[in-house]
């Protein structure tokens, strides 16, 4: 009995599938494109596609309220999505020649060819594409993240050297290692591809934001499409980055204050972008990653990509459902501006390290403390010992234990640090990280000083 019924529903399903070959929008032209369950003709497809983009970009422009036109930067990898974005932004800005929405558009690309033996730089190819638009172009090399000017102050030349049980801040000496050597050493000392990929992404992001800031751009456009974002939602979750996930996948975020990040491609599937590029004759370039051509289990990012793309084939609403779920998440009310991870610059949760020590027990405490009560005592102890900034310890001391160092990291970066092997080649983190440590130290010092004199203060900090 039930078998018969199932067959009926099956037939019914087939009937819903678009048999008619006409476009679902204009109803007249012959359909040539199938997106999820709908068929479109070429003209309507392009109209819908551009419309989605305009809607997103209008929304962000209205929210920011900048009437006179702002200076913006496009993060341009050269891949299909950012290629389409470049075209769409330029078209959008030329709708009304007398009133341009953006006063200036800068295109920025980061070359990663150093990571791949003997590969040619991607900059000449990218420059050729950008030249067609007549926009100023900034070509960067990832290794130059070690330059002293890629810092807030613009001339900070200390770096962090990671050793077995401490992390030292020292003066950077370019004569010993070139930036390329330092970057390669760092990445070679990361034993797992998951952590390596993570590191590379955040170094790039930090470099882009810094470059936007230095060039007076108040907005940075990133080309993440919905397929990419849904992969990111799952991979960030899997890497323990749920706390910062809403900031890292939303259509817009002001977490970096003076540089707003906007993702105008967030509602387009990678398939749609491919079709659009083909119709518009937009050429993209092949961008290699450290897991390109590798097995699906090479890294979490790579595995997630494989998982989502395969699932989407079987269940065509996978990507849009995940993206919608992600869009319903919001940054926590407990996000504090000062709790910013010094590596990825994303917010971290207070006390998550204590949580971790409780549910992952790595040692056995000495005999007298084996009940719940003394565990709490232990908690307090470790909390105290983790606070290296008591007032006797003023910032002259530039070496810190690894525990103190990892206190300044978010959960995800701390997981990554476990995969760093301290080898003969020195593991050196770039100046912006060292600058972050010193800034944090100074802030904590001031907090301590303030605590000392608190009872004599007659007004709060802002009024001083």
């Amino acid at each position, binding site marked *: 009995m*039930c*078998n018969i019924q*199932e067959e009926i529903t099956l037939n019914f399903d087939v009937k819903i599938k678009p048999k008619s070959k006409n476009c679902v929008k204009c109803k007249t032209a012959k359909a040539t494109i199938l997106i999820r369950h709908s068929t479109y003709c070429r003209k309507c497809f392009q109209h819908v596609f551009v419309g989605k983009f305009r809607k997103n970009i209008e929304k962000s422009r209205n929210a920011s309220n900048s009437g006179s036109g702002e200076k913006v930067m496009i993060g341009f990898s050269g891949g299909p999505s950012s290629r389409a974005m470049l075209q769409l932004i330029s078209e959008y800005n030329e709708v009304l020649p007398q009133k341009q929405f953006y006063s200036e558009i800068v295109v920025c690309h980061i070359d990663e060819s150093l990571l791949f033996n003997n590969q040619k730089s991607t900059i000449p190819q990218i420059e050729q594409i950008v030249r067609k638009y007549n926009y100023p172009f900034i070509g960067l090399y990832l290794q130059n993240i070690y330059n002293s000017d890629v810092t807030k102050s613009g001339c900070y030349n200390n770096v962090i050297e990671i050793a077995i049980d401490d992390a030292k801040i020292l003066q950077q000496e370019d004569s010993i290692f070139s930036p390329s050597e330092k970057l390669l050493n760092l990445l070679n000392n990361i034993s*797992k591809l*998951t952590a390596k990929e993570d590191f590379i992404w955040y170094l790039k992001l930090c470099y882009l934001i810094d470059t936007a800031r230095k060039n007076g751009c108040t907005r940075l456009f990133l080309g993440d499409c919905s397929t990419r974002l849904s992969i990111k*939602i*799952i991979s*960030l*979750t*899997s*890497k*323990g*980055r*749920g*706390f910062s*996930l*809403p900031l890292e996948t939303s259509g817009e975020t002001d977490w970096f204050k003076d540089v707003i990040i906007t993702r105008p491609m967030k509602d387009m599937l990678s398939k749609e972008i491919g079709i659009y590029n083909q119709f518009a004759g937009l050429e993209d370039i092949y961008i290699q990653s450290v897991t390109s051509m590798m097995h*699906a*289990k090479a*890294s*979490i990012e790579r*595995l*997630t990509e494989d*998982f989502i793309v395969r*699932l989407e084939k079987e*269940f065509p609403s*996978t990507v849009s*459902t*995940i993206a*919608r*779920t*992600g869009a*319903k*998440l*919001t*940054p*926590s*009310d407990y996000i504090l501006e000062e709790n910013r991870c010094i590596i990825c610059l994303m917010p971290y*949760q207070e006390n*998550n390290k204590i*949580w971790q020590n*409780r*549910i*992952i*027990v*790595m*040692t*056995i405490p000495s005999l007298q403390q084996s*009940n*719940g009560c003394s*565990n709490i005592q232990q908690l307090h102890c470790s909390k105290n010992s983790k606070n290296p900034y008591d007032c006797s310890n003023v910032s002259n001391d530039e070496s810190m234990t690894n525990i103190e160092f990892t206190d300044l990291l978010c*959960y*995800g970066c701390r*997981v990554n640090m*476990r995969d760093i092997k301290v080898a003969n080649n020195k593991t050196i983190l770039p100046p912006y990280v060292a600058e972050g440590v010193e800034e944090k130290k100074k802030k904590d010092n001031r907090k301590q000083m303030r605590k000392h004199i608190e009872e004599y203060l007659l007004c709060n900090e802002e009024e001083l």
Partner: protein
Amino acid sequence: MVRLCVICNKERAIVKRPKTGQQVCKGCFYYVFETEIHNTIIDSKLFKKDEKVAIAASGGKDSTVLAHVMKLLNERYQYGLELFLLSIDEGITGYRDDSLETVKRNQQQYDLPLKIVSYSELYGWSMDQIVKEVGLKNNCTFCGVFRRQALDRGAVMLDVDHIITGHNADDIAETVLMNILRGDVGRLQRCTEICTTGDGCIRRSKPFKYTYEKEIVMYAYFKKLDYFSTECIYSPNSYRGHARTFLKDLEAIRPSAIIDIIHSGEAFEIKKEVKLPTQGVCKRCGYMSSNELCKACVLLEGLNRGLPK
């Protein structure tokens, strides 16, 4: 060369801990395994003194180890709990009847009172009969919905208002992923809570929230605990299967991924403007429900009318 345990540095290491990769001896493995569960219980203030608690026991590895560990921790740390075993007989020949035998043996070993409630006594339908009626397509929906209520009803019969289940870290991580894939934000927020409760209803907790499935098997193996390890004969659904495979692959790449996913899940916050279903009460049976009738009553009505779903 004999490898020494990295924790005590005395005994010979015999396992690599799946959770941390540390090579440890048997004694230290037991210690960290039990202590992590104890910490979870203490930190989330799971129990009150003199509370009556029912352990949902299926005879499988998770609930067998749960019964063992709860009895042990209750004595070691003087929680002062009165423990019961509560089993559901779904009426699946060749599966549940065998596993219930294991539960009965556990009852003897741990000396805990046991209560068994059956689907046929509660709903007038056993799973075997349901499968005959609806086929193998949605049968897991029936089983899942009915079990939830059956446990609560069993708890009432035992005069207990707290049930603990053997859900482990893998199960919770998998549920986090599933809820993202399905777009169920209401459940996404709830699924990482260690203790859930409808108002006035029975509390339900997961002491194994941070315990790896592999370590549960390891613990049962070394302690030679008696458990039943056959998959249900009415196979699991495929979409969840994809998530499970993905999670196993993640764990192989990075063992901490399971804990990392739970950590992410705990940090998620839903936008205030997103409408979540409000919880009410079923008009027919009084069980908590987000609709007029609870899912169990809807399914049951369909069964009794002979129109599945």
